[in-house]
């Protein structure tokens, strides 16, 4: 009969109305600035640079290989290589970036940089409250550097995998070094 669907709809909205006062399932709004949903592990916002140890600049994993800058579809990453080298976690001497800038006004948070990075150096962050009155939204190397602990905290699964892989490589390199004591070690 005509009107039955309307009545059923009215009943449903009525249930919503009175349920919203006691049933949390019928009042699903999160009042943002005061309440925040816990971020999903796989969420990604802007990129950041991972460093090991305590000193952000010394422990930076980035080797200034510029793969990310080349792959970035928006061309928002600007890297200048430093002439000085420093040993990486395997003891190999690697380049390091003198300048590592990301223009956040251009970055579209696609995460391609994080995927192509062979050194697990660039990862995607969880922060999203980025609004600022500064019209120039270029983030410097110092702004981008965040510790491995932070990485572990926001992406526990991925960080564990990365740490395990790096530890395995380190062990392998260690074993190689011990097995073949080269002249360089002397």
């Amino acid at each position, binding site marked *: 009969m005509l009107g039955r669907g309307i009545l059923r709809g009215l009943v449903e909205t009525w249930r919503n*109305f009175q349920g919203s006062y006691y049933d949390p399932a019928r009042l*699903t709004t999160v009042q943002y600035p005061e309440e925040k949903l816990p971020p999903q592990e796989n969420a990604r916002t802007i990129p950041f640079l991972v460093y090991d140890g305590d000193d952000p600049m010394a422990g930076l994993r980035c080797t200034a290989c510029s793969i990310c800058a080349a792959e970035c579809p928006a061309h928002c990453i600007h890297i200048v290589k430093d002439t000085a080298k420093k040993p990486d976690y395997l003891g190999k001497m690697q380049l390091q970036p003198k300048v590592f800038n990301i223009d956040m006004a251009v970055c579209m948070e696609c995460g391609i940089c994080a995927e192509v990075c062979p050194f697990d150096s660039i990862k995607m962050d969880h922060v999203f409250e980025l609004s600022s009155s500064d019209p120039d939204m270029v983030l410097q190397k110092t702004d981008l550097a965040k510790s491995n602990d932070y990485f572990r905290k926001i992406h526990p699964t991925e960080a564990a995998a990365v740490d395990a892989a790096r530890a395995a490589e380190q062990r392998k390199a260690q074993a190689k070094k011990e097995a073949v004591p080269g002249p360089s070690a002397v």
Partner: protein
Amino acid sequence: MNALDQIFVSLQRALAGLAPVPARPLLAMILNIAGLMAVFGTCFALTTILERKILGRMQNRFGPNRVGPCGLFQPLADGIKMLIKEDIVPFSADKTLHFLAPLALTVPVWLAFAVLPFGRNMSAVELDAGILFFFAIGSASELAVFMAGWSSQNKYSLLGAMRAIAQMISYEVPLVLAGVPVLMAAGSLSLPDIVQAQSGFVLGCVPRWNVFTPWGLAGFTLFLIAAAAESNRCPFDLPEGESELIAGYLTEYSGFKYALFFLGEYLGLFAVTGLAVTLFLGGWQAPAAWLDWLPSWGWFAAKFSALIFLFIWVRATLPRLRLDQLLMFAWKFLVPLALVNLFVAAVWWKWPAPLTARWLVCAALLAAPYVWLGRTWNGPTSQERHYHYAE
């Protein structure tokens, strides 16, 4: 009881008595007008916030709760915002008509409140042809809508205005026809008389309100549906269907003129709701004899608020209709049913049978066309669609 019941009447008399004798009628009128504007202005502000809160609750969210305690100062903030917004008039607009349209919409709507009886002895003007006045005043808003749509020189505005006018004209017919049985029953066009005709009780407990008769119930339902369409309420708010027409005839309005349209729309809803209360729900009468100690205006306010809540509830529930569905619904469903209802009302009053027999026969006389029309009227969508390539 009597003092509380007549508190506004005696207050008005006392205040008007302060003036010198020749100025008294004028002052009394001004007091009436000021009272009406104050009450329904506040009512408008309250309804906007409550509507948004109730809609929110019905859609699993909070609604506005930021400004003031529980967001109660939201209408104030909205008003300030509307007032200080820039008033933009399109370059090619017809400036005079563009300016006059919001006024032409809002002023007649205020006039409509003059004849409504809000309580015992509480109507600003007691007109012999009160309900005719109400509908005559209401018909002025159509021209205002046309002025708004045409003067904006914008195709969305014009289309929205044409839709609004087609809708208002179509739904005015069932609106008036649904009210006619009440006039037949009361034998008067004067609204206080209609309320008086609904006093007393049947079988000792059921109030003699029109809504408690078969034709009254049907008329009430038809009246509410037509009233929702008349005041552009959801699900009949397609003159300003933002998904297709931006904002209909309001597209080129901003700032305070837009607020005036908004006010006019809500006041129209209030007026027609007040009329529904008067015609079908016994006006200011208490639902039971032992509840008579509550003031009459309190009962009116309670019934009025309940109907407003119903409108909000329906708005939260139903999606917007399509234009052809809307007009079909008016002409092919509401108008025939309203005519049948007229006949049923005549049967109810002229058939000297016992109450139960009359009830059953009248209800059957109404239910049969309802079911039949509901079966045959599947709307214009009854033609099944065939997809040749995308099966």
